[in-house]
């Protein structure tokens, strides 16, 4: 049994660790996500340019985690983009934010 069948998130965990441990990976990841469209119409195919960016992103991730990466799909890339680039899910104040200013 390989890692992926034991843990369906194994590759994503490896990506997460890579982003946490290397600022250069995090920066490049964020830059590539920023190039990807903010949203795609549900009825249309992924535009060619967006597909190329996603392919580039998946290629870099594969290098960072040592190969064997299945790739992020469109939905996953949009989700990452919303979190890392738009910080859309970080709008609620952090639990610690309250101590700012006093």
């Amino acid at each position, binding site marked *: 049994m390989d890692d992926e069948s034991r843990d369906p*998130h194994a590759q*994503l*965990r490896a990506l*997460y660790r890579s*982003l*946490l*441990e*290397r*600022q250069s990976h*995090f920066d490049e990841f964020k830059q590539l996500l920023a190039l990807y469209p903010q949203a795609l119409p549900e009825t249309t195919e992924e535009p060619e340019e967006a597909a190329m960016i996603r392919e580039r992103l998946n290629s870099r991730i594969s290098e960072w985690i040592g190969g064997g990466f299945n790739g992020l799909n469109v939905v996953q890339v949009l*989700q*990452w983009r919303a*979190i*890392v680039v738009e*910080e859309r*899910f*970080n*709008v*609620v*104040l*952090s*639990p*610690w*934010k*309250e*101590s*700012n*200013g*006093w």
Partner: protein
Amino acid sequence: MLLRQELDQLYAAFCETLPSPLQVGARELPYRLRMAISPEVPWSEVLGHEVTFAAPAVFSEAMPGIAPAKVRDAVLAHALAVIDGFGTDRLEDRQIPASAEIREILSHIRNARDRALARVASSTSREPIQFEKAQCDMLEAIHDEQRIMSEHGFADFAIYERIAGGKTAIGSPASVALARAAGWNEYRCHAVARALSAVWLGMQYHDDVLDWEDDFKRDSSWAVVLAREVTRGEATPRASGHESARALVFESGILAQMLERSFRYFRAARKRAEVLGARELAAWARTKEDYAMWLAQQERQNSGYAVRLQALSPWVTKVLS
């Protein structure tokens, strides 16, 4: 009653006492201060930790004879002091536009705060505790911070802690007043103030690490100011742009140092809470102590780890948990 519900009920009751034209603004104060994403968000959802908005209550478990009404008044006085602290800081620091309405609401908050504190202290013959000196310390600290930031200056940890201590000075009087009302001696009352001071510093260091890049964009990053100090005399970037600021902060190792100090202050708070019999506070401080130590180690090994951890946390919540 849960402390969060009690906070919202106490604040709602306070709003009812205000002149009608101020009531809406007061109810929406978290939003008006840009601490909430919509007008209906109550304080209980803005203030993350009970120790922040209800510090007197976390000590009350060690005061078995204290009247619940005293605890409630102390919590009200403390919560209003904290809210006034947020508002004053944001106004003074121009994080929000100048507003006569908000200034008037804050004035009412301070009056209600002082009345609540007076009720806590009414049964003791000792010298009354007041917020006046803490308020002065807070304003002085805010202005000192503004001066250092505007000058793009240097500061060591002693200056940082003096200013952070001043900005959080209003976080102790209500709890100390409750301790006195419970008949605690001066040594124990002093320990309450020291424990809370350690909590606030532990939190402040942690926040100033996580927020350093956002703070830098507003010309108010303590990490950069401290990094300038620890690298003084070395050939380091001047931190005029984001990249050079990041190089300065990372190469100085200042973020790990700040997190180590956060760890030490949470440890101090935990030890004092244990001595005072405030077990819940001690347990809470223990979790913060452990986390700060772990995060400092990660930051030491991988510069920028804490900020990246924060940035990625929503993804972990949505995907991996």
